């Protein structure tokens, strides 16, 4: 702005020379040019342009080995661990922490010359589901452009991070649901595997699996499961907020990538206010069908409740959640194939999706 002001001033001065006398004109011109000349040498020169040549082409060497700030960490007690290493130049690095029992992966990446608390602080979170358990974790540091470099260390997680504190947990399927669970196997199409299973949980030791084949009554519908809000110990779900835009529903959903399955999550509003879910009486709200063909393994599903169309008043009387397994008969071969999905750790959070 300073330079622009000088210009406008100079412009005005030089324009005014048309009505000034000769001597004064000369001085004005010289002053204006001098002012501009003096102000014409300010540049931003403290940094440099482009990537660092040393980073780009310089030889790589590790200056300090990979180390963990703690060998044993208690995430449930909100302990954290960070990792350190040092190189002679900035490099693209990848630090991968793998749960040796769960297979969970936490991944840090960056372009730095050192790993510090600022870029590798781990609070027990996960990049790739399932969640970590209380387990031994292997930590591996690699640099893609330097294939020969590898750093390893192990960290013992004596307790996992407690995600249940980060919102209102609906259910994590860790205990039997008893009378709060209704399995609607009306067409006898569910397999015996439908129910709480422990083979591949996303969190803890068990999850809920819906599995079946739409081959008895070929009508797309395989079966459903209603989970009453009473599973939380209350008639209605105690939500951290009733504002639909601020309330996020989160869960982990599993698919084997099969091409014909659809999953639906319905949120049930107790229309008649009797404290229980009555089919065809109470209103249900949903976001969309989840196309199970679009992923393989566990993923996190999160959305604000406003996307279901439910109102703030209706959220105050959330009486149940219904899970439906649909078989896309338009795409199914004949006879149709089995479809399935798993679900785990259903939790409501405020303001943002559950952060892993």
């Amino acid at each position, binding site marked *: 702005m300073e*330079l*622009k002001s000088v*210009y*406008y001033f*100079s*412009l005005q001065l*030089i*324009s005014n*020379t*048309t*009505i*000034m*006398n*000769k*001597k004064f*004109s*000369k001085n004005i*011109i*010289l002053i*204006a*040019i001098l002012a*501009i*000349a003096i*102000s*014409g*040498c*300010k*540049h*931003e*020169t403290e*940094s*440099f*342009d*482009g*990537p*660092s*040549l*040393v980073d*780009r*082409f*310089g030889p790589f060497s590790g200056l300090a080995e990979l180390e963990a700030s703690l060998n044993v960490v208690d995430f449930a007690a909100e302990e954290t661990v960070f990792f350190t290493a040092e190189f002679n130049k900035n490099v693209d690095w990848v630090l991968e922490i793998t749960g040796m029992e769960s297979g969970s992966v936490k991944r840090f990446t960056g372009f730095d010359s050192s790993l510090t608390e600022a870029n590798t602080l781990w609070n027990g979170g996960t990049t790739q589901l399932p969640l970590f358990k209380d387990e031994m974790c292997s930590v591996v540091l690699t640099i893609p452009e330097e294939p020969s470099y590898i750093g390893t260390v192990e960290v013992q997680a004596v307790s996992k991070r407690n995600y249940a504190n980060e919102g209102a947990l609906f259910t994590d399927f860790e205990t039997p649901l008893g009378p709060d669970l209704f399995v609607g196997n009306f067409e006898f199409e569910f397999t015996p595997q439908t129910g709480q299973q422990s083979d591949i949980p996303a969190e803890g030791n068990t999850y809920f699996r819906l599995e079946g084949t739409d081959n008895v009554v070929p009508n797309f519908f395989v079966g459903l499961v209603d989970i009453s809000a009473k599973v939380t110990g209350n008639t209605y779900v105690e939500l951290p907020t009733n504002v639909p835009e601020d309330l996020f529903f989160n869960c982990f959903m599993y698919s084997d990538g099969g091409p014909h399955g659809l999953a639906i999550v319905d949120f049930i509003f107790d229309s008649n206010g009797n404290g229980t879910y009555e089919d065809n009486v109470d209103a249900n709200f949903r976001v969309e069908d989840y196309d199970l063909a679009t992923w393989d393994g566990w993923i996190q599903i999160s959305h604000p409740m406003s996307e279901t169309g439910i109102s703030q008043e209706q959220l105050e009387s959330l009486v149940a959640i219904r899970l439906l397994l649909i078989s896309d008969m338009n795409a199914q071969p004949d006879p149709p194939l089995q479809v399935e999905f798993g679900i785990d750790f259903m939790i409501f959070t405020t303001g943002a999706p559950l952060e892993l």
Partner: protein
Amino acid sequence: MKYYFTKFCIALTILLCLSFDAYAQDGSSKATQSQDDKAKIQFNGLGRAIISQTGIDGNILEEDSSTIENITDGEFLLDLIVNASPNKTTEVQSIIRLRNEFGGFFGAGMALEVRELWLRGVIADVLKYRVGDMDLALSPYTLFLPEEEGMVNEPAVFAPQREVVHYEQFYTDDNTRRMQGGKLDFGLNFAQGIEDLDISAFVARIRGTDFFITPTRLVAGGAFDFSTVTFNDSLGMKADVGLNVIHTFDDLRSGNANTGIRNTVSTIDFDITLLDKKDISFHIVGETGMSNLDTAERIENDAGDEENNIISEEDDTFLDVGIQIELKKQSLILSASFIDIGPDFFSVGAQSKRIEYNGEKTFYNRIGTNRMLRRPTLFDLNRDRGIYTFRISDMLMGYDPRFANAMPYGDATPNRQGVKVGLEYGKIEDKINATVNAAFLQELRGQGTLQLKNFTHLRAAVNFNIHKFISYKNKLRLTLGMQVESTSRDGQEIEQVDLNSNLIEVGLEAELFSKFELLLGAKLFSAEGTEYIPSIQSFNDIQDFPSRFVADDKETLTGAGFKYEFKKDTYVTLQYNTLILEKETDPLNDYDLNQFYVLYTMKF
């Protein structure tokens, strides 16, 4: 900038209203020469016929069976200039081109096009206007087409083909750029203080929209030049001052594009004569100014109206100031200047180059068994119109540091600070005339490192009119040219740069008989060392340094031929040129290029 333009427009209006003794100024105007009330039509033009055989040979072709070793081509063209003056204040001109490629029969390879079309005239004997094609230049930092690389004082034997390139790309000696648009000029004389004042303004379209993502690009600008009266008659003190503004912008209402650039450069140039005597004159000369580069986005505001929102902005300044001393008796002009061109100084109108080094060459673009992209050589720079352009680029163009590393974008090369010195001796018709220029520059901001590059640049040209030494009746002229460049940078080994290049030109023009000349010439070029060439992402932002550039080349371009000049600008020449390219560390990729051609050019 809108305040600047507002001020400019107000000043223009006031001056028009006050211009009782105003007169139109355009020295090149033919309209003012057509004083007859009767309509006039004139036919002029240029005819050209060229037939050439180009060949390639060398180590690189030993395993290469796909490259054709000899290519014969040529063209016959007629540019017919139709100039009409329907009245004494209006003139319209078009150039209609008829072109037939060598070997084209029955219409195949034939083209008919309008090469140029413009209209100009004078309104009320005051305001000159021009619409259509026009050649524009303001100052070296605003709108200017810098010289191409690879030549200093090029031997005359290489001139005919370069003239063809220049003609095809509308290059002029005034470093103008060819544009399409409209222009206004007028001038004023004053009785005191200011002696005369010239104002010009123009607007031109330099790119059309594709109706999708590319918006129409326009350039508008103007100059406000005035000369003072002599302040002190005994010393001859006076000043010539100019204000220059150029604004390049994308019209975001064109097509579906929603982002575009705004590049504004405003400068003041001056030539202050402190002393002007019979034997000597002393001047302070220079130019200073600033550039502004914005990226604008078209958005819809709360009221539902569309408006432009600036999403990025970059400013910088430059300074070029120096002294010039003319020793009139000695025919000697000495100059020295200090330059400080900011690293973020961006002026599309002045920094766009003539040569597109990434452009596709007309001959042998790829050669060798792996179809290697051939780097432009002296041979290509002399004759290949395919790698030349007059268009304004929207980012800093690529360059070859072997040919120009100190100032690849001419005077307006950003990120330079240092001293330039110059010497001019004699006139072209004297026994000896010479020009020497040197620059000692340093980067202001490092590239890829905080270490700064240092540049040394030396250019010298000397002409010997030998016939004046020995009283030979016909022309006998020896021309010499030289360019030496050195670039260095300290730092860690990986940061170090050390590139040296030398170009030597020797030419002989011997008029054996009246108007019949023997032309001989040679250009010897060598480059050695290493450098990093940045790849530019947008505007002047460096995206990366793809790899270390290693130069180990020697190029020898020689030419010999005859030229017979029927009259000025009408001649026939027959020549043989050859280029030998040698790579010290990669001799398997050495190759030679040669060319035999006949060129007949006629202006009428």
